[in-house]
Structure formats: C-alpha cells, structure tokens
C-alpha cells in the first residue's frame, strides 16, 4: 500500500502505517486523516506532536493508558482522559494517532 502526500508517494504497511518512519512529514498526517474523514485540528496536532516526542525519547509508541496519563500531565487533566482522546481519534487514540504521527502500532495493540 501507499499514500500520496506533498507530491510524493509514501509506502505503508497493510494497515496503513508508514513503512519507513524516517520519511514522515506533517503532510503525511494530513493525507492519512483526510482519507479517514478525520480533518486535523490543533487539538489533534497536540497529540500527534506529543507522540512524536515520546517516540523520539523512548523509541516506543506508548500504550493508550500511558498516553492518557502522560497527556494529562503535559496538556492538562481535562485532556488526560480516554473520552477526550477517543473524541479526537474515534478509531482509537493509540492506533489512529500513532499512524498519523508516523509511529509503529503501539506494542501490545491488536
């Protein structure tokens, strides 16, 4: 599979995750979100940027429970709950947001 963004073609795996994580650019996230009918707002970008920073530091995509806790600490308690995150990413904050952020699927995520 592949996705078009920014005039380029990006290879993805069978579930739509970026094949080469180093290729990521913001336009990839925008294109993936558009394809899933989920236009990105600033609130989405907060989470996507957070995930990229987390991956940069720890080399893993965090589990949803870990993401929720960490977002609450970083962006405020009103955002650190699964209701808020699921409203932003209805397909699952772990799966969907990690995909847009160019991360692998979270370890232990089915």
């Amino acid at each position, binding site marked *: 599979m592949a996705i078009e963004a920014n005039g380029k073609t990006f290879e993805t795996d069978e579930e739509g995750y970026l094949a080469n994580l180093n290729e990521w650019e913001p336009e990839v996230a925008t294109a993936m979100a558009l394809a899933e009918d989920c236009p990105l707002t600033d609130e989405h970008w907060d989470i996507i940027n957070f995930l990229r920073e987390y991956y940069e*530091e*720890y080399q893993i995509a965090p*589990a949803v429970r*870990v993401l929720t806790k960490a977002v609450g*600490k970083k962006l405020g308690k009103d955002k650190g709950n699964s209701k808020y995150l699921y409203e932003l990413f209805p397909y699952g904050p772990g799966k969907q947001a990690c995909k847009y952020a160019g991360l692998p699927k979270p370890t232990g995520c089915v």
Partner: protein
Amino acid sequence: MAKKFMYINRKAPYGTVYALESLEVVLIGAAFDQDVSLAFIGDGVYQLTKGQNTKAIGQKNFSPVYMALGDYDVNKIYVEKESLEERGLSLEDLQHLVWEDEDNDYEEKDSIRLVSRAELTDVLDEQEVILSF
C-alpha cells in the same frame, strides 16, 4: 487479583533476541492487571547500561525503552550486585530508571533496587509466575 510476575533477564542486550523479546512481553503484560518485577542477573545487567551504541551492528538501540518502564507502572527492577561487580560495573554505569508517584505530586522515585544474590533469592521465592529470558 493481580498475580506476582517476575521476568528474569540473563543475556547481553544484542546478539540474541532474548532481551528485546523480554521487554516486549513486559510492556504487553503491563497492560493487564499484574504485579510486575524485573530482575537483571549475569550478562543481563548489560541491558541497563548507559551510552549503548548499536550503529556498528546495524540494529536498533532499544535501551531508551527501559526509561519508559516507569510510565507502565513497572517500577520494581532488581539488579544483582554480584553480577555487576563481576563485570566491573556499578550502579553509576546503569541508566537512571525512575517512576512518578501520582499519589505523591508526581514525585520521581528510583526504580532500580540493588540486591545481593541472597536477597534476590528471597524476592524470587515470593513470586507466583517466573519467566526467564
């Protein structure tokens, strides 16, 4: 009821897949209601060392992942004192693993517990499930 799980790590981080596999099982297992402990003995203590560089062997350096264990509520990390000493290492050579105590204003606390071989035997005695990697 949370069961007491102990993951024992005995091998150097690279060269075999044991260290990485253990880490993945720990992260997956942490999503369930388990009381998780990790032990590092023998060459396993090398898994926690600072400043790992895997460029020359063309593998991913997964040592930063250990720093995330605290986020997964994995904060009982036993390191065997004799194993460190036999390899000319000390606690200073290991990454500083911490966890944040949510009930105590996110106070950072040390995750690593340096124990003697005899003390580790007692810890192992208390476990309900032991997995060895």
